[in-house]
């Protein structure tokens, strides 16, 4: 759930829509030539190709330069794309003869579909004995690169959990503490409202902030297993009492006026939701850790004046989930194309183990304001928010990947619409569950 990912429209998808037919035809042609099993990339031998994301290029590029200088015979030729462009490109590219050796992926449902189609390699075997570098990474993040217990992808980038941001100023004026439980939150709502503030800012116009509420509530009420059953295609998994209760609590919060007026038109892609909190019009915001970087641009000195407070999603009384559990973006990952030949595969593993999560790599991430998902990074991170979030990640028993990424593309598309209806109160918890149950196994 990186911000870049959420930019609603890429040039490519715009074109795809304009000439939907043409795109369908083009992709058809691509897949038709994709049946030949040539070695990953255009060249044979151990030379590798890599497709990455422009946003992560500053971290990836130095490792490629370093690797290529020492391994002329297995040099990597890297290409970087904008996030949406890449998503469109890899969808058709991964099954084609031009599939890159090193595949950038967000893990989750899309990666599972690669695994099901036999397009990426099980790296469990090749990694055994070379996995020293993986021991540095937090296990909860490594889990996100696994499908059915087997490692298909290794983490390459920062972690970004979702957490509560508070305007400390507003909380003080209202005279309340950070809500530790859902009941605290519900009783804070009328107090904040009567003091003339909006309780919670929500960027519903962008849709994706909705999912943070349901994924956290379901976790707090029923624990991480509820959503695991969905991913395991258990019949009727969405009708779990935890899901129904979470939906009900969301609608109760809406009825109580918990979200800032007009929340369904507020865009999180332009940080309008963050602005409401940072400028003191709303008291709280549930957002990803990535929002932190933008606060200063909206309200100068907000952070340095100590107006920012943050914390975990409140606990739900009687809930099974550990209040230390987090949700969000564990990391992005490298997978290896199944079209790679054995030399390429072993070169890829060497590349991972010699360049990923080395001290300079981790430091590069930390210095640019990111939170590296490694076991011991607190010394590298600035005091305050980054260290605090790092601690949340480190102590979290479970790190739930954002549901939209974790679900299959078809289920994810339905999820967006159903969630939208739920937050608009055009739907009921039961209707939500029924509609989502139809996507099980799709």
């Amino acid at each position, binding site marked *: 759930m990186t911000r870049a990912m959420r930019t*609603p*429209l890429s040039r490519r*998808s*715009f074109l*795809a*829509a*304009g*000439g*939907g*037919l*043409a795109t*369908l*035809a*083009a*992709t*058809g*042609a691509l*897949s038709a030539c994709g*049946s030949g099993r040539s070695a990953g990339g255009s060249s044979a031998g151990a030379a590798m190709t890599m497709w990455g994301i422009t946003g992560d290029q500053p971290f990836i590029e130095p490792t490629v330069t370093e690797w290529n200088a020492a391994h002329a015979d297995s040099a990597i030729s890297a290409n970087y794309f904008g996030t949406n462009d890449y998503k*469109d490109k890899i*969808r*058709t590219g*991964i*099954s084609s003869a031009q599939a890159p050796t090193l595949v950038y992926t967000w893990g989750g449902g899309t990666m599972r*579909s*690669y695994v099901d*189609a036999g*397009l990426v390699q099980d790296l469990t075997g090749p990694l055994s004995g070379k996995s020293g570098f993986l021991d540095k990474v937090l296990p909860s993040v490594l889990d996100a690169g696994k499908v059915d217990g087997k490692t298909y992808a290794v983490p390459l980038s920062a972690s970004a959990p979702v957490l509560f941001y508070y305007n400390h100023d507003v909380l003080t004026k209202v005279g309340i503490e950070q809500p530790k439980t859902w009941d605290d939150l519900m009783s804070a709502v009328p107090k904040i409202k009567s003091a003339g503030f909006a309780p919670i800012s929500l960027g*519903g*116009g962008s*849709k994706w902030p909705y999912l943070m509420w349901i994924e956290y509530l379901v976790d707090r009420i029923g624990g991480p297993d509820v959503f695991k059953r969905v991913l395991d295609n258990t019949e009727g998994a969405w009708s779990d009492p935890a899901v129904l209760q979470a939906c009900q609590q969301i609608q109760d919060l809406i009825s109580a006026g918990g979200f*800032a*007026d*007009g*929340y*369904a*038109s*507020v*865009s999180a892609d*332009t940080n*309008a939701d963050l*602005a*409401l909190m940072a400028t003191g*019009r709303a008291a709280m915001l549930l957002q990803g850790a990535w929002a932190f970087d933008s606060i200063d641009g909206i309200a100068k000195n907000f952070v340095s004046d100590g107006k920012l407070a943050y914390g975990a999603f409140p606990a739900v009384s009687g809930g099974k989930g550990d209040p230390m559990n987090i949700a969000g973006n564990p990391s992005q990952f490298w997978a290896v194309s199944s079209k790679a030949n054995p030399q390429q595969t072993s070169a890829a593993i060497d590349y991972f183990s010699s360049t990923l999560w080395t001290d300079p790599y981790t430091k590069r991430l930390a210095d640019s304001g990111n939170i590296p998902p490694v076991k011991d990074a607190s010394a590298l991170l600035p005091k305050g928010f980054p260290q605090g979030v790092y601690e949340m990640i480190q102590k979290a028993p479970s790190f739930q990947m954002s549901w939209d990424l974790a679900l299959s*593309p*078809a289920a*994810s*598309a*339905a999820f*967006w*619409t159903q969630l*939208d*209806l739920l*937050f*608009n109160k*055009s*739907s009921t918890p039961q209707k939500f569950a029924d509609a989502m149950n139809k996507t099980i196994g799709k």
Partner: protein
Amino acid sequence: MTATTAGAPGAAREGARAAGGRGAEPSAWYLAPALIFFVAFGIVPLVVAAVLSFTTWDGLTPPKFTGLDNWVDELSDPVTYNALWLTLKVIVLSWVLQTPLSLLIGVFTAGRQRYRAVLSALYFLPLVLSAAAIGIAFKALLDPNYGLGHAFGVKALVQDWLGNTDLVLYTVVLVIAWQFIPFHSLLYQAGARQIPPSLYEAASIDGAGRVQQFFSITIPQLKNTIIASTTLMVVGSLTYFDLVFILTQGGPGYATRLLPLDMYLTGFQASQLGSASVLAVLLVLIGLVLATIITRVSGFNRMTSQQEGA
């Protein structure tokens, strides 16, 4: 025009034409460039989409033939009918809103007074903006907290424009109109300038006022322009995508999930390219039918001049 006295160049040209054969008839080869592009980017994709509509395809694994499954699914899905209904609403609302306004602006700017050139330039400004830019700008303008209402302190403008299921379709139609009225105004401006001034002179001698002139001369004379503009509007409404996608992504819920958006979201968000192809084929069919109806009903294909007696 006699070429005999023109000397060598004229004679050479005559010779060249003779060598080309068939006298004044242009060679069929002139058709080739357009035909190649049309076949490559029009016909071939259409056929491929038609074929894909009978398959299940996620874009990763090879398409599997599943016969009529997608067609049955899509045609029994209330979402498809909702999308059709919304698309129809957008077509009608867009026409009702855009045609009178474009006509008035077009006729107004067709006048030759100097200040009108400046005004026309302003009216046509949205024409140079991309749909993406317009979408992003309007999203910001319509923001309930930081948008227009906030800037001017007008409470009535503080609405949940894009989040309220009852409002959102009208908001979208308005933004679409803002984008396309300039284009249709331009058509009407060009059309109005073609009307011979003698008609108006004769009418004013006969004592017709401005309003009567507008209804008795301008509108009948613009008949073909109105038909062309209507065709473009109706067929264009069928493919509205970019602006709506940026503004609402088809939401909230299904409130602005027009047929083209339904196609995109099914194909590229849900990765069900077979089902999306069904919707694509439907779109093509509806577009063809509507365009045919308009040209038939209006007699546009007979292309008679509106200037008999002028």
